[in-house]
């Protein structure tokens, strides 16, 4: 069972308290975007075996969206952070690097 710390409540929320929201850090493509960029935004997703970044909602708790970095192979959680950011904060990246040296995900490493 997955347990993620909600960065707003500070509580360890059980998976049953949460709602999964898919990939994190998607860049929205709107009117004026090229067809390829828009297709990427709508349909193309990372599908890693290892380090992954996801959106989660503390559905039964505060109701807020947050982001989580975890390993899809081992379910190890590297950390969670508020959703109001365009990329993972440095402490999260450092936590991943300590466990998975040389990791990369999309444009992040």
């Amino acid at each position, binding site marked *: 069972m997955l347990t993620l710390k909600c960065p707003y409540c500070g509580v360890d*929320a*059980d998976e049953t*308290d949460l709602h999964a929201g898919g990939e994190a850090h998607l860049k929205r493509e709107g009117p004026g975007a090229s067809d390829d960029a828009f297709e990427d935004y709508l349909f193309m997703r990372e599908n890693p075996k290892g380090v992954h970044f996801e959106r989660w909602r503390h559905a*039964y708790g*505060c109701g807020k969206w947050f982001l989580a970095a975890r390993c899809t192979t081992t379910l190890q959680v590297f950390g969670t952070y508020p959703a109001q950011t365009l990329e993972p904060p440095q402490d999260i990246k450092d936590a991943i690097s300590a466990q998975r040296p040389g990791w990369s995900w999309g444009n992040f490493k």
Partner: protein
Amino acid sequence: MSNAVSALNGKVAAGEVTIREAGLRGMITLRGDLNDSKIKSVCTGLTGVDFPTVGQANCVGEKGLCWMSPDELLILVPYAEVNDALAQIAKILKKKHHLAENVSDARALITVEGAYAREVLAKLAPVDLHPDSFAPGDFRRTHLGQAAAAFWMRDADTFEVICFRSIAEYVFDLLADGAKAGRVGYFD
């Protein structure tokens, strides 16, 4: 004026741990900037308790303040005082961006009282209820069985549980069954 009746009209399941539908309680959902001094002062003024920090509930008697989310607070007052409280909020926060709504009749309040009340909640909620992790003052929104609920502790042996009125019977029965099954001794 209609005669307001609470969800289970004071139903009681007596035992070593007693489950009691606590009757009518005034509840106001307040959304806004919880760091705002006016919002803080209207809340503390209405209830006479300190403004809660993250994840906390400060309750005395029928009054209290519960931290629901970074921008939401639950204000508890006696049922008869809700409309006055709303009027005061509207007056004092007139120029502040906020939302205040009377949710008293949308909710039920159930108390769980007795020596192993902690265990009854622990059976139903995915929450660490060890005395070192959850104590009077702590407030948690989660689910009991299949139902959304929130709870806090009035004292070492008493929990107060709120849920939607429409599922009050389900939550009451869950708690009553959990209590009837007896003590596990997990936290002893």
